[in-house]
């Protein structure tokens, strides 16, 4: 019974997905109602997860369902982030679809299915579960990316993502097979124990390599980052926001869970992760600096944030792992990124006609509150206090220096200096240049409300340590 209570939020989401799918099949509800139902389920799951978190303090990793899943504070925080991402993506989508009419009732059902896969992924303790969760999540995301089937860029993005994602899935499956061959089990703990005793085994190395390639692909880390620009650009703004935040949160949670389960696994990979983190940060920055389109810039800056999270992964240690640093950063990053995509959802206009930096010139003169909110999100992503992004970066750098990775900490700082350029560029365009249009928007106010809520939560998360 306890096990079921632990996964109650997940069950709520799955139930919601099925309900919405049935409603969509019989076309009994309006789009607004469907969005409302989706928001309701996300909110209910969030509340259930929050209530579960108020219970007695649990272990870092508590095994449930005979060790098939793990649950703890870290997975709980990740699930909260994912539910919040789903909630705000729904609000953004609703407004977005008022002007971009390629909506369908299934859209919201797919969001819920994707979220279900993600939450399951964060709790996976063995590879088969992880694979299933990964595919549940990915299949839903593929459809969401290509949802606007009349648009060429969306279709192109879908094709790219599907092909590469399928490869990544195959790598994951092959890696699982090899690891099972080496360890005789698909459980992370069992694999880690074997890895500790026979470090050089080729089956183990090959399996782990394939597994990591798949995970690095999903989080868009160097050298598997190239797809992310086109895919984020092609997908609809709310979907991009959902992918950039929730998906990254889910995969990074799994990543951290695998690495933290046994010291041997982490030590084997720390050196490679070190270089991957550095290259990811700087590759992302170099790509972002050259972009003119906002979504492409945000996609590239997402790569940079993946780099920071990899810094966090380098710094974790199996003995003292709580996931707090990574969980906090994921929440902080999610609030900022979702906020920008929420704003883009209602400011982008029909067919996302406002897409480049230049298109947002003078926004502050016409819509000061939207510009202020976007500024808050950008400052958070850039890590300027007192926003959430600053505290997130603070924790990441602290953990890196604590782990003795001073060089990595300094490189992370240098990378955030570089990133100032493209974050400031948008602020400069919005505030320091004259307005050329009225930025008239039609549609529901939900995305706007979501933007305000996220702007508030950027500060709330940033000042969270006060509350603790």
């Amino acid at each position, binding site marked *: 019974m306890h096990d079921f209570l632990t996964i109650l939020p997940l069950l709520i989401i799955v139930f919601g997905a099925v309900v919405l799918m049935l409603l969509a099949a019989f076309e009994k509800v309006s789009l607004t109602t469907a969005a409302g139902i989706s928001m309701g389920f996300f909110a209910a799951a969030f509340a259930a997860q929050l209530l579960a978190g108020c219970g007695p303090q649990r272990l870092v990793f508590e095994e449930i369902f005979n060790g098939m899943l793990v649950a703890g504070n870290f997975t709980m925080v990740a699930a909260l982030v994912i539910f919040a991402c789903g909630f705000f993506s729904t609000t953004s989508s609703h407004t977005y679809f008022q002007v971009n009419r390629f909506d369908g009732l299934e859209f919201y059902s797919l969001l819920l299915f994707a979220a279900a896969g993600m939450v399951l992924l964060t709790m996976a303790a063995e590879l088969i579960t992880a694979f299933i969760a990964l595919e549940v999540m990915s299949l839903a995301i593929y459809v969401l990316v290509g949802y606007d089937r009349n648009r060429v860029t969306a279709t192109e993005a879908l094709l790219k993502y599907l092909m590469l994602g399928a490869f990544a899935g195959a790598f994951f499956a092959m890696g699982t097979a090899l690891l099972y061959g080496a360890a005789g089990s698909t459980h992370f703990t069992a694999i880690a124990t074997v890895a500790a005793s026979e470090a050089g085994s080729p089956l183990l190395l090959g399996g782990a390599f394939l597994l990591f390639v798949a995970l690095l692909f999903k989080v868009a880390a160097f050298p598997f980052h190239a797809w992310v620009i086109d895919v984020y650009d092609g997908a609809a703004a709310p979907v991009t926001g959902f992918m950039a935040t929730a998906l990254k949160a889910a995969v990074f949670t799994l990543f951290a869970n695998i690495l933290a389960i046994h010291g041997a696994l982490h*030590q084997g990979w720390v050196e490679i992760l070190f270089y991957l983190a550095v290259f990811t940060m700087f590759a992302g920055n170099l790509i972002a600096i050259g972009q003119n389109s906002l979504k492409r810039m945000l996609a590239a800056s997402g790569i940079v944030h993946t780099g920071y999270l990899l810094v966090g992964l380098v710094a974790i240690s199996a003995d003292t792992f709580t996931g707090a640093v990574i969980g906090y950063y994921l929440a902080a990053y999610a609030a900022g990124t979702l906020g920008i995509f929420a704003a883009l959802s209602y400011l982008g206009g029909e067919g996302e006609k406002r897409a480049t930096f230049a298109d947002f010139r003078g926004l502050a003169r016409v819509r000061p509150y939207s510009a202020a909110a976007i500024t808050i999100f950008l400052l958070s992503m850039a890590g300027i*206090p007192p926003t959430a992004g600053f505290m997130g970066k603070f924790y990441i*750098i602290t953990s890196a*220096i604590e782990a*003795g990775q001073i060089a990595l900490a300094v490189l*992370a700082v240098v990378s955030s200096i570089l990133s100032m*350029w493209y974050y400031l560029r948008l602020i400069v365009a919005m505030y320091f240049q004259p307005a050329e249009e009225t930025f008239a928007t039609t549609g529901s106010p939900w995305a706007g409300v979501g933007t305000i809520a996220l702007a508030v939560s950027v500060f709330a998360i940033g000042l969270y340590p006060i509350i603790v």
Partner: protein
Amino acid sequence: MFSYALSVMIFLPILGGLALFAAPVGRGAARAIGMAIALAVLAMGIEIFLGFSPVGGMQHVEHRPWNLSLGISYSLGVDGISLLVLMAGAVLFPLVYAVFTTRTKGFYANLLLVQGAMIGAICATDLVLFYLFWEIMLLPVFFMIGIHGGAGRLPATLKITIYTIAGSLLMLAALIYVGVAHQAQFGFWSFAIADLAALNLSGGFTVWAFFMFMVAFAIKIPLFPFHTWLPDAYTEAPTSTTFVLSAIMAKIGVYGVIRFVIPVFEIEFARWALLLALAGVAGMLYCGLAAIAQKDLKRMLAFSSASHMGIIALGVFCMNVQALTGSLFQIAAHATSTGVLFLFVGLMEERMESRQIDEFGGIAYQAPIFATFFAIAMLASVGLPGTSGFIGEFLIILGAIKFSIFIAVLAGTTLIVGVCYMLWMYQRVFFEKSNERTAQFKDLRLAEILTFLPVILLIVAMGIFPQAFIGKIEPAAQLQVAQLQKGGESGGIAASIDLAPSPHNHKN
């Protein structure tokens, strides 16, 4: 005085500024609100100053834990080191609202934010809290220059912003390193400056961390060779912002060195003091010479300000009580004199629509009171005996002689450069022939005279009765220098901590 005075001084302007952004009020009302808040802060500042007892330690202390897991606390306090910096800001801010009457609501709101953040940075006794305010301080300046600046404002804004943020982020890394080192040595997290002062830092990364701090502060001061953002930013910024930047923000750079770098990195500081002092003198000389060549009055003052910041920084690097006291005194003296000069230039620009020295002339005949006030502020800036500038520079040179005769002689002679450009400028602007432009210049109105008079009197009073001010700052300066010397002696036996293994060390 009630016990949360400092918090009120910080958050009254910040909340007032935020409220102004949202409130639908006109610019007149916005200015009145800003003025009222600035005056309230000034009243509290005066109250603190008068009630300040001249002992070394912190007063008006506020402390509450904030982030327990990392030992970050919300700690505030005022001592002799921060007192005059705090007062300079409190005295000068009301003038901005009095002189610049035509700005927009957003501008006044930004001014309030920057004032609150500055007071926060000055009063913070926790390194992370200081960093928060230090960074927040930059944002209003970014918007003030970017929205209200001159024709070349965009490059100037980006330059100052990226420059200072680069410095700040490096400082962030160093700051965290210091915190981690404290945890490693004492077993608990703390960023309180009193705790960090107990650290024995040594090892490979310490010198890097020291320079990361120094670069951040050097950019803000600005210390040669990190001054290149300054001429553009000071010239392109609206004059009220230039005033804020030069009169107060630059001082917080020096203050940061005294408050945080000296106690934490006493060994490194002693080791590199000569190099830094040379940088201070070089900046003095370079910016002084550059000032002579300027045609734009505001740009000339910008270089002059940078040149004077060089000598203030020099006083800090000499590591003795006289020089440090002189620097702290000179911070207030320079803030008042240069601040007033920038305000006067802003006034001239508004009335005569020019800043070119060539286009002025004969103002003294049209506006004798204005010319007198300008002369007093200018003479204080060049350090004429009887004005505030003399005391500070005298003490600094005195301390510099103890530190190094060579540097003292260099600094002393460089002061003459300051006299050159200032008097030459005064001659061209206020004497010689008046022209069409200056003939229309009206002298200060009574209200304006009454606005500036207190500050002018303060400049003279600081020159004639310096002891009233020095008495308050000297005990704190003595404490600080004592700490530095103790650190210099124990340098050899510092416990070594090894925090910097390369990533390769993790491989089994």
